[in-house]
């Protein structure tokens, strides 16, 4: 067996919520039956974004905020890979906001995990888009990614988990990965992952999370109901977690974008680009194109 890159020891502070995500991703990938060499972890820039270095798999460390663009490129280039992008709330909702919004729209079958700690950990605790008013002088309203995700009318998979609740997290991640592997489209999971050094929200979150599945009327196929349930939960001072949206039955006419583009699933990375194999088609192209 060829020796290649091994995970390094994590660079996180002891107690960091990101450990929960790391453990859950490892378990979920195994449980979903992903062959490790077919897995690609795309890391953002931030404490969270180091995650790909701590797992035995393929990893690519994107630029700050650009992990989703790279992840989309990977999946559309080789739809046989299982692509998981993971980064911070700053990475995803500040500098990465444009790509974040377009990821729902594109609906490429990959999993995006935002490790939300309501702060910029790696740059030492500035306010992030999810920070509450008052945190480090923040005077802007915090962004709620789940509500916004629900507002985008595309059949994605949308969920929120909490690092303090590994069981639910693993369940959700397994479902998300299977959703992707069935080419049903984009899966978004926001994990509440406290930064124990700059913004320790463990206690607060533990007291406030509510599994949406336990709420009356829970119906993850209906965005508008879920939107209402989430708003009401938040108005009551609670934080909804669990699966917020999954299509009732995945619509075969609207699969993940990779399948619309590449029905035979070969794709750019695995295409035979040898001259001889393509000579006839190339000659025809050159004859007819210009």
């Amino acid at each position, binding site marked *: 067996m060829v020796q290649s*890159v091994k995970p390094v020891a994590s660079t996180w502070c002891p107690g960091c919520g990101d450990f929960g995500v790391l453990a859950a991703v490892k378990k979920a990938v195994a449980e979903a039956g992903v062959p490790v060499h077919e897995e690609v972890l795309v890391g953002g820039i931030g404490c969270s974004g180091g995650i790909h270095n701590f797992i035995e798999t393929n990893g690519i*460390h994107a630029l700050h905020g650009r992990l989703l663009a790279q992840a989309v490129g990977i999946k559309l*280039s080789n739809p046989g890979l299982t692509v998981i992008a993971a980064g911070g709330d700053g990475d995803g909702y500040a500098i990465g906001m444009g790509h974040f919004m377009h990821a729902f729209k594109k609906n490429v079958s990959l999993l995006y995990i935002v490790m939300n700690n309501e702060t910029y950990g790696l740059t030492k605790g500035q306010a992030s888009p999810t920070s509450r008013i008052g945190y480090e002088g923040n005077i802007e309203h915090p962004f709620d990614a789940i509500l916004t995700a629900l507002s985008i009318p595309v059949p994605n998979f949308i969920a929120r988990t909490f690092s303090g609740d590994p069981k639910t997290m693993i369940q959700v991640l397994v479902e998300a990965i299977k959703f992707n592997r069935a080419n049903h489209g984009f899966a978004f999971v926001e994990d509440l992952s406290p930064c124990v050094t700059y913004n320790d929200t463990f206690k607060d979150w533990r007291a406030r999370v509510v599994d949406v599945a336990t709420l009356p009327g829970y119906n993850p196929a209906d965005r508008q109901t879920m939107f209402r349930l989430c708003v009401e939960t938040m108005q009551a001072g609670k934080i909804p977690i669990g699966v917020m949206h999954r299509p009732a039955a995945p619509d075969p006419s609207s699969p993940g974008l990779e399948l619309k583009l590449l029905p035979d699933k070969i794709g750019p990375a695995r295409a035979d680009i040898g001259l001889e194999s*393509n000579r006839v*088609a190339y000659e025809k192209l050159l004859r007819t194109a*210009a």
Partner: protein
Amino acid sequence: MTTPAAKTTPVPGESGGPGAPARPKELTDLAVMIGGQGGDGTLTVSDLLGRYFRKRGLYIYTSRNVLSRIRGGHADATMRASRDPVAAVKPDVELIVAFDKEAAEIGRSELSPDGAILYDSSVFQLDLPNSVGFPFATLVGGAVGQPIFKNTAAYGAISVMMGFDPTQTRAVIEERFTRRGPEALEKNLKALEIGRKAALEVPGLADRWHVADGEAQHQILTIGNQAVALGFVVGGGRFFAGYPITPATEIMEYLMRYLPAFHGVVRQAEDELAAVNMIIGAAYAGARVMTSTSGPGLSLMTEGIGHAGTAEVPILVADCQRVGPSTGEPTRHEQSDLAHLAHLGHGEYPRVIVAPGTVEDCFEITIEALNLAERWRLPVILLLDQALCQNTTTAEPFNLSKVVVDRGTRLTAEQVAKLDVYQHYQFTPNGVSPYVPPGTPGVFSQVTGNEHNEMGHVSVNPVNRVKMMEKRMGKLIHIVPELPVPHLFGDERAKIGIIGYGSTFGPIREAQGALDRAGVKTRFYNARTLFPVPKESLDPFLSAMDVVYVVEHNYTGQFADLIRSALPQHHAKLRSIRKYDGDSFRSPEIVAPIQGGQ
């Protein structure tokens, strides 16, 4: 239908006298400028003329001058037809076809002494010598309904002035309008006849010029952007992401048509940041990739291209230069991104900049660029310019004879299985580490834009840092033998050198001809690799010359600057010929300073 009262001022033929029947002037090279309000189809005239002259075996070169708006505002095109290959705007114009007053005003300074202006007198009046007014719009207003047919009528009038073969003149109309349905075709044929008739009725207008048939029967008519798209496909390119921007958009549009048949993917991204990062992801996963853009998008890709440099991901970025900086002049011509590209991005990483000089070269260099990127695992820039990208040119049909697809050290699962160790950033003598695509069983890799060790893990170890910098930057030395070589033209013993790249190729070749006729021998170094500065070929070239003119479309003399910094010992020989008004060189603008010894 009544015969129009054509308003004419004398149009001199070789016999000179107003109104007198003139012998047709025999030309081997002819230019017609057609101008009017953008979006009203006046540029169709240049298309029709081009089609006719192609049928007669002539070489065609058409340049456009349009505003960055969809309708209205002045727009013009200049169609050149020649018995010899051409890739430049003709310095003088035989005929101006003016559907608005601006066309006449803009074109006049380039009108040849025996040239003529044909204008639409239903829209405005011209009191210029050598002008003929026909109320084209009114003429067609009655018989065929819409003023849009004025263009075809004008084409008819021109066909008379140039003694076109009537059958082939009609054939052009049929070719062009048949797919618009029988009604459109019929109306256009009517408009053609109206125009012909009107012109025939003006004494002395027929047969002003004549261009003998040429031999360019098998040439294709294309633009640089199409050649790049085709080169990309046959060079094995399979993933393209871009964002619309003038004058680059056509590359994406062509690829949208071509690539799906080859397991390829084309995506219009949400912006250029996404586009460049999408191709980085796709290349990391193992595809041959490209994006294309122009100045503003290029600036936005700065971070991403540097990331590809450090992470050693092979990407190809086509920069279709336009007038900068900032939004600048989207539809107009310049070559002012080179300095930026040669130093692009914070920090230091290797990159290669190649520049084709002709549309044929667009096809070839794109393929070479794909090989370079993947063999050396670095970003390659394909530097184009608006004139090369968008001006239509007759070209040798593209073929596969020179196509080579070389992916460098890309290991298969079988090869990997035989290794003891696989390291994505392994130190090697030439700096290139073998590549294994993710998904290969039994092996993993880590790829990052942080400084890293051979395994791809983050490292700030100073010794490793130095080695990694030397690994990456060293590629620029080892790659040299594989870089596109310059094309040299002109007298081998000349002491006057000319250096240029991109679309200046055409004007420089033409200037060489003129200089040669004036007894001035020159040697033209058509640079095809711009960065790393090709010292190996430039040094002997500069050594052999007394004086060297660097011809480029920018204010500061960017390529001259790069050469000066790389080969300072030759600095005293370097002269600069620059143009930065948004238009491309006319050959006299190159001839004059060289002849003047400036």
